[in-house]
Each structure stands twice: as C-alpha cells, then as structure tokens.
C-alpha cells in the first residue's frame, strides 16, 4: 500500500471514532441527573426562561436527534455551537485557548524526549551501575509522583521559598498578540523583556509536565535497549570489531527506539489529560482549564467541543507515530504487521 493511501485510510477511520466519541459524550450528557438548562439559567430564572434555553439547546429532544443537530451544524457550517458560560462560539474559545496548551505541551514533550531517551539508553548501557540506579530512581519518581502534587511542590520551592520563577499565569504584562503563541508573539513584537518573562513563566509547568511524562519514557527505553543489546546481531556487530559507538547508535538504538515511540504517540493524550490538572494549578489559560471549568458548569457545547479536539489530537499523534515507524524501520509494512 502506498503511504498516501494509508494516511487517507487512517484519516477516514477518524470518522467512525469521532462519531463514537460524540455518541458517548451525548450519552454522558443525557444521564446527568441535574437539569443543565436550570443550572445555566441560574437560580432566579423563571420557568419560561429555562424552557427557552432547553428549546435552544435541543435538550427536550432524544439523544439521537441532539447528535443529528450537532453533526449537521458541524458539517454544514463547521460550527461547534455556543458555549453557555462564556457566551462565545466554542470554536473561538478553543482557538483562543489552544496556543497556551500547545506551548506548554510541546515544550514538555521535547524536554521529556531530550532527557528521557538518553537517560534510558545510558541506564541500559551501564546496567546496575550507579548511573543506572540514579536514572531508574528518577524514572520511578516520575511515574509514582502525582502530577498535581509535584506541581504544588515546584511552586512551593521555586516560587514561595526561592522566588526564582513565577508560579501562575503566562506573562506579567500583556502584549499585543498575533498568533497566541506568546514566545513567538514577543519575538514578532521585538519585545525581549516579554520574551524572557514568557520563558520564565513556562519553566515550572513545563518541567513538572516533562518530569511526569519522562518516567515512562526512561523505563521503556531502558527495557527495550536492554533487550536489543542482548540480541545476536549486536553480538555479531561487536565481534566484527566495530567501534562501540557505532554498535550502539547504528545497530542497537535504531531498533530499540520503536517501543518508546509507541509510548510517545499514546502519551500525548496523557499529556492533554495532565494539562487539566496543571493548568488549574498554574492558572494557565489553556484548553485544560477551559475543559475543567466547562465540566463543572455542565457547559455541554464546550465539553463536546473540547473532547472532539482532544480525540482528534490523540488519533493524529498515533498516526504520526505509525508513519514514523516506516521511516525508522523498513521492515514495517504500511497497513500490515511487522515481520
């Protein structure tokens, strides 16, 4: 199968999964014992107002009709509905909050890879040496520490006690925005002070999130590297007299990288889930905090919009990983099983 056909097929597979996600979310909204319309209208609202809200959001209709209305708006107008709490279209809201989350997630992702994979490799190469014990300790710490707690510890230490980094928000003085990505925006404005300020604000949340996703990465890289190092072709390469560096990077690492890659594809979703906790703690104006707020307020259009975006991001990141497989490992046939 050609790569293009494969990607197309995978993208088509998005449709049933998204349909499933929609059905699931609407079922959840249907089993809510409380009356969302009453919650939105507020305690003082008259019955007529509540009824009007119900009509407007099709709450009186059965679930399948609600899904139908939602889908027809989505497909015909690319409209995700209007958020009940903010009063703005959900799409506008998500566009406004997405850059903040993306900035956070991508830096944490890069940091986790840049530290996690080398640490796992070194750990495997120096098995049962102090370096190995150290990195296993770090990895276990990352896996075992609750994200919300380590975030608070970071705030306690680096903000309250040492005062090195700010604890909340994305920047101190607002700047003119072009893209919503503040690092980029401050560069575009030529505002170096804002650039430094943004970077400083990023440090604590990014490090916390990276530490959290790094743990699994180190563990799986180490395990996979150990397995490959024991295989016969590595022994052959060694006995041919190849330099150690070449054996490790050319022969071992190339094969050992596949399981960590799979994990990375899946962990992007974990990262998104993690941002809910992290953005709440660091008062980070991103999608995670938006979603948490929407869930508390039973803001159905916002919840559905966010879950759709989250599901699409997760599926796409898995797709990217699958494509990377074929680039790294020629034995992986697209659309088939590895031999």
């Amino acid at each position: 199968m050609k790569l293009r056909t494969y990607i197309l097929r995978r993208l088509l597979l998005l449709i049933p999964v998204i349909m499933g996600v929609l059905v699931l979310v609407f079922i959840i909204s249907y089993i809510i014992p409380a009356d969302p319309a009453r919650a939105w209208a507020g305690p003082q609202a008259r019955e007529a107002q509540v009824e009007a809200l119900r009509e407007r959001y099709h709450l009186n209709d059965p679930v399948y009709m609600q899904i139908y209305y939602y889908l027809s708006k989505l497909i015909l107008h690319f409209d995700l509905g209007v958020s009940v709490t903010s009063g703005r279209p959900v799409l506008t809201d998500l566009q406004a909050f997405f850059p903040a989350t993306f900035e956070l997630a991508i830096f944490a992702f890069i940091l986790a890879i840049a530290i996690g994979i080398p640490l796992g490799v070194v750990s495997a190469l120096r098995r049962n040496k102090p370096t190995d014990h150290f990195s296993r300790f770090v990895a276990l710490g990352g896996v075992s520490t609750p994200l919300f707690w380590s975030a608070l510890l970071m705030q306690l230490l680096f903000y309250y006690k040492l005062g090195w980094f700010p604890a909340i928000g994305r920047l101190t003085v607002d700047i003119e925005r072009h893209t919503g990505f503040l690092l980029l925006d401050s560069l575009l404005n030529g505002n170096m002070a804002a650039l430094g300020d943004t970077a400083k604000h990023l440090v604590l949340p990014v490090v916390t999130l990276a530490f959290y996703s790094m743990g699994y990465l180190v563990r799986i890289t180490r395990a996979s590297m150990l397995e490959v190092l024991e295989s016969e072709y590595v022994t052959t390469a060694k006995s041919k007299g190849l330099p150690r560096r070449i054996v490790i990077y050319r022969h071992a690492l190339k094969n050992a990288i596949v399981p960590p890659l799979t994990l990375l594809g899946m962990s992007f979703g974990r990262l998104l889930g993690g941002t809910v906790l992290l953005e709440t703690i660091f008062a980070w104006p991103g999608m995670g905090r938006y979603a948490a707020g929407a869930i508390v307020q039973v803001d159905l259009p916002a919840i559905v919009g966010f879950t759709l975006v989250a599901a699409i991001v997760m599926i796409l990141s898995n797709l990217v990983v699958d494509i990377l497989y074929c680039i790294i490992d020629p034995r992986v046939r697209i659309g088939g099983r590895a031999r």
Partner: protein
Amino acid sequence: MRLVERLPFGSRYRLFKRRLHPITKEFGLTLYVLRKSKLAVLGALVISIFLFLALFGAKLAPYDPIGVDIANRFITPCAEHPFGTDKMGRDVLSRMMSGAQYSVRAGLVVLAISLPVGVILGGIAGMYGGWVDETIMRVTDVFLAFPSLILAMAFSAALGPSLFNAMMALSVVWWPYYTRLIRGQALSVRETSYVEAARSRGASNWHIMIRHILPNCFSAVLVTLTLDMGLIVIATAALSFLGFGAQPPTPEWGRMVSDGRIYLMQAWWVTVFPGMAIAFTVLGFNLLGDGIRDALDPKLRRLTEVE
C-alpha cells in the same frame, strides 16, 4: 555469587518438588525469584503498611480526623502533631492514617469492576474474531480516544461528585485497557499448536478459553494489576483534587492536598505530607509490579543472581 543457567531448587524447595501441579510449581518459582529482589520486597513492605493503615488506620489515629478544633489550627509539625494540623485544627497525621482506606477501596473497586468486563470482552473478541472482534475493538477505540482523566471527570460530573461516583467513572475508563490486553494474549495463544491440538480433539471455544487462554493471560494480568493499583490511587486522588471525588471533610489524600493548596505558603505541611503518602504508596506498587514482571520473565529469571 554465580550466574546460573537454571534456578537451582533450594533444599527447601526440593522437599515438595516431587509431584507438583505446573501452576503451583510456576507460582513457587516466581515467589522464589521475587524474594531475591530487594526492591520488590521493599515494595511489598510499603504496600503492607498501606493495607494495614487501610484496615486499622482510622482506629489507631491519635486524634479525631474530622472533628474541628479551631484553637489549634496550622500548628507546625512538632512532637504532638508530627505532621502539623490543618485549617480546622485537625491533625494531619491522623487524617492521613484514616485516609488510606479510601485509596484502597477505590483501587479494589475499580479493578473488581473493570477487570472482569475486560477479560470477558477481550476473551470474546480474541476467541471469535470476525465482526464480534471488530465491534468490540471499535468501541474500545472510542473510549481510548479520550484522555482518560477527562472522560472520568465528565462521568463523575454527570453522576454527581462523590467518591463512589469517582470509582464508577474510573471503572468506565479503565476496562478498555484490559480488553485490549486480554484480546492480544488470546490472539497469540489461539495460534499455538496446543490449542490446535485441543481443537482437533473437539474442545469447545469455552473450554479453550478457560483452560488455555486465561491461564496464559495470568502473568500479564498480574503485573498490570499491580502497576494499575498505583495508577488508580493517583487517578482517584486527582479526581478528588479537582473536586470530583471525595467531598470534605472526608480525609481522602487527594482532597487533603487540594484543601491545603490555598495555604501552601503559610502551612506547607498540610499539602506536602498527604501527597507524599500517595507517592510512597504508588512507588510501592510500582516496585512490586516491576519485581513480579522480572520474576515472570524467563530471560531475566535465568540471569537472576542466586547464591
């Protein structure tokens, strides 16, 4: 110390080596290797403390974990209150001791619901294949397409925030992982020659499932369960932290962290110690889980250093 090719059955083992059922023998071997791993033993120790506190912590707690004592609020850790007191003057240590039960309960309930569902669905999917498999796996795909924490949040918000509903929400999120795991195992076992032999003898699907597939899943499930216990403890605490799980004044650990959060600057101990309890518990499950995995891995087992 020497490296051995096969495990020497120690004298104690040889006593009852004679005619053991293979499963019993396997179990004995695993336990034997497990005992050699210091980290696994440490993990088991931490878990024992955790389970002990879950059973007796509430009775052993020196102070009332719920009663308000405003006169003694925010006492720094001292001899009387080793972990200090919180905003209501409640002893943090006593609250932590009585809080262990909620985490244990959550872990056990979530596993008790999601594992059977996963085993049954995964077994059916792997065994029958075809459209049954396709349907079940597409449904799990939908569940796995969500970030699990967010799905759990949505469910517990829909059901109304309480610890019980948080457990239900987590169960709903958890079963697809087991379905996938069991299906994968079932698919690989289904192709083995001994299953083919059983089939040619006229064994039913049901028989093959019970006698061949499930026993083969046992080790993978055991490792996953141990590691997942830790993950569920964290997830429950995270839900409570966000306000979707245990409600005040319940001394649930995640809830305690969230209660202390506003007072982080003036009273760090209210937040730091309960979080530490979560971290240590999860660490215990991770250490034991890793130990079990290593003990079950024949390759590593061969390399285990024994005296």
